[in-house]
């Protein structure tokens, strides 16, 4: 294996490597191109804004889940955490009979975020300190947080929130909805955190080989705890966003969202075994799901078929990824 052997990779080879590395980006572009051709309603500014808005919540959840999956863990509780955070937020965001806010808006936001963080911390403590398998822990907290959401909200949607939040949920600045702006900000921070900081590197190391990471002096269990807290934060944030969007705190919100988030992560090329993956991949993955849902609605494909198609996409993405690694 001398230098000459390596440099034999010519221009064609390089193109191949680039194509493989960014395969899902090409997949998204192709998807958009195809949809633009077969539907004249697809390729418009307003429709792209629609897609961005619809994807923002799943994208943020998926970003949180990516951190967890990169350490080799899993978080099934994000959908329920979203619900319980949304309910907590909506209860504090309520107005009284005269339309006056009961509490300052910031407090409502804090309540939502804090609820997410709390459940994230719970997940993190049990996974990292008590060393219980994350699948089991988050399966448990998934039902616990859903139950708490239902108990607190008495099974009914918590309505009557201050109009500030309604305009946050549906408003925009310069044509870009606030929800999308939040998503972009979160994406940028997440990409930065994972790619440019020690903490990000530690996440990869813990996921790649926890024992080796520990031997290198990395506080592996703290890193693991932290990713669940981040994931809880993201769930809390998206819970607030969801509540603002539909102007109500639904205790049964976010059912199945955990699987959609995990789908985005997997389509984005992150290995469920941990240690391998990219944050931008997850974001692209979320958009593949979002574009597909929107596009198929525009084409009038029934939601039954949409389920079949999204399933195929997930499996195809993993196969593509595996072909890449061979």
């Amino acid at each position, binding site marked *: 294996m001398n230098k000459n052997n390596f440099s034999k990779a010519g221009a064609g080879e390089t193109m191949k490597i680039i194509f493989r590395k960014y395969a899902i980006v090409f997949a998204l572009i192709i998807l958009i191109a195809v949809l633009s051709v077969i539907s004249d*309603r697809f390729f418009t500014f307003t*429709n792209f804004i629609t897609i961005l808005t*619809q994807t923002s919540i799943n994208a943020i959840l998926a970003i949180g889940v990516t951190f967890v999956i990169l350490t080799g863990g899993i978080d099934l509780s994000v959908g329920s955490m979203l619900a319980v955070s949304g309910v907590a937020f909506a209860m504090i965001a309520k107005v009284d009979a005269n339309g006056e806010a009961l509490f300052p808006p910031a407090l409502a936001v804090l309540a939502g975020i804090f609820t997410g963080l709390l459940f994230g911390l719970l997940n993190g403590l049990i996974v990292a300190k008590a060393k219980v398998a994350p699948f089991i822990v988050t399966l448990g907290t998934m039902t616990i947080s859903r139950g708490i959401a239902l108990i607190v909200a008495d*099974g009914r949607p918590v309505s009557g929130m201050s109009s500030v939040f309604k305009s946050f949920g549906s408003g925009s600045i310069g044509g870009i909805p606030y929800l999308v702006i939040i998503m972009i900000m979160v994406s940028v921070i997440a990409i930065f955190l994972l790619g440019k900081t020690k903490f990000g590197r530690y996440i990869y190391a813990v996921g790649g080989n926890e024992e080796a990471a520990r031997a290198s002096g990395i506080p592996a269990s703290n890193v693991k705890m932290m990713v669940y807290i981040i994931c809880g934060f993201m769930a809390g944030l998206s819970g607030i966003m969801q509540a603002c969007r*539909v102007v109500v705190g639904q205790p*049964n919100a976010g059912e199945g969202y955990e699987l959609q988030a995990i789908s985005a992560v997997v389509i984005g090329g992150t290995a469920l075994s941990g240690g391998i993956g990219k944050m931008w991949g997850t974001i692209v993955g979320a958009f593949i799901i979002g574009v597909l849902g929107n596009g198929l609605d525009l084409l009038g494909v029934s*939601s039954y078929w949409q389920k079949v198609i999204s399933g195929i996409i997930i499996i195809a993405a993993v196969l593509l990824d595996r072909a890449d690694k061979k």
Partner: protein
Amino acid sequence: MKKLLAAMVVGATVAMFAGCGQKAEETPAPAETTAQETVEAPSEAAQEETKEEETTEGMTFGYLICNERTAFMLDLIQGTQDKCDELGIKLIVNDSDMDPAKQISQAESMISQQVDAIIVTAADAEACVPIIEKCNAANIPVVGVCNTFSGDLQPDGFVGSNDNQSAELAVSALCEALGGEGKIGMISGVAGQSSEVIRGEATKRLLSEKYPDVELVVEDTGSWTRDGAMTLTENWIQKYGEEGLDAIFCQNDEMAIGTCNALENAGLTGKILVSGIDLIPESKEYLESGKMYADVFQDGYGQGFKAVEVAFGLVNGEDVGGETWIPFELVTKENMADYFE
């Protein structure tokens, strides 16, 4: 996962109600605060009454609810609970989370607890028929409420509203407003559930029979949820715009509100009309402001209330069986004041 969740909810519910039941005689208050936020003074008064009235002492009814996750279902429970409180009957509520198999086993355990009557909102029209068989075998009166059973074997009594009527009311309100001519879309509930099937079929029948010039251009499921309908409507707006769609019928109010929000965000309020079913409290604002054109009131509370009445009559050997219909009522901006006090 859903099952686990449901098990927890049911467990919690049973524990609560059981706890309440035991303490009911000495301390009625906890029952209200823990389980039923909205139970108010009347029921307390009712309980006071029952202390004096000894005839129903120790009587227990069981209520098998298909799920308690929507406002309507909670109204049903509320009506049932209030009537039971009034009569001094202990009520056990079990939630099957839409799982018929689970509902059957819940019925079995109620039978073994020797409840005096069973009220059931079936999780599935066909799969839940064994509940009737088992109650008959155990000689326990069984009353269906809200959801119908299919087949020859029917419960001893049935209280409900004719679901065909609900969709007819909501859709014809839209068609009339459009002058009998236009394009509408329909957002349905979870596919395959009986109310979704009946409302969908009724809509299509009504259009073909009475409004041949109204075209159903698109239909899809919003899974009964607000965000589901909102996303769907956003995509429809992209596809059809203002011209391609004149009205949207949503099979429940949660979805109707989601649709209203999406239309409002796109500046299409009033340009595309919306109707829903259920008349949940939040709909008041939407009807008032004209975001929602029409709504249909299904009297869940009344159904639950009536169901206990029927069951109580059956226990006492009265001839109150058969079907009791609680009618649907169309609610618009004009008459909404009667429904929101």
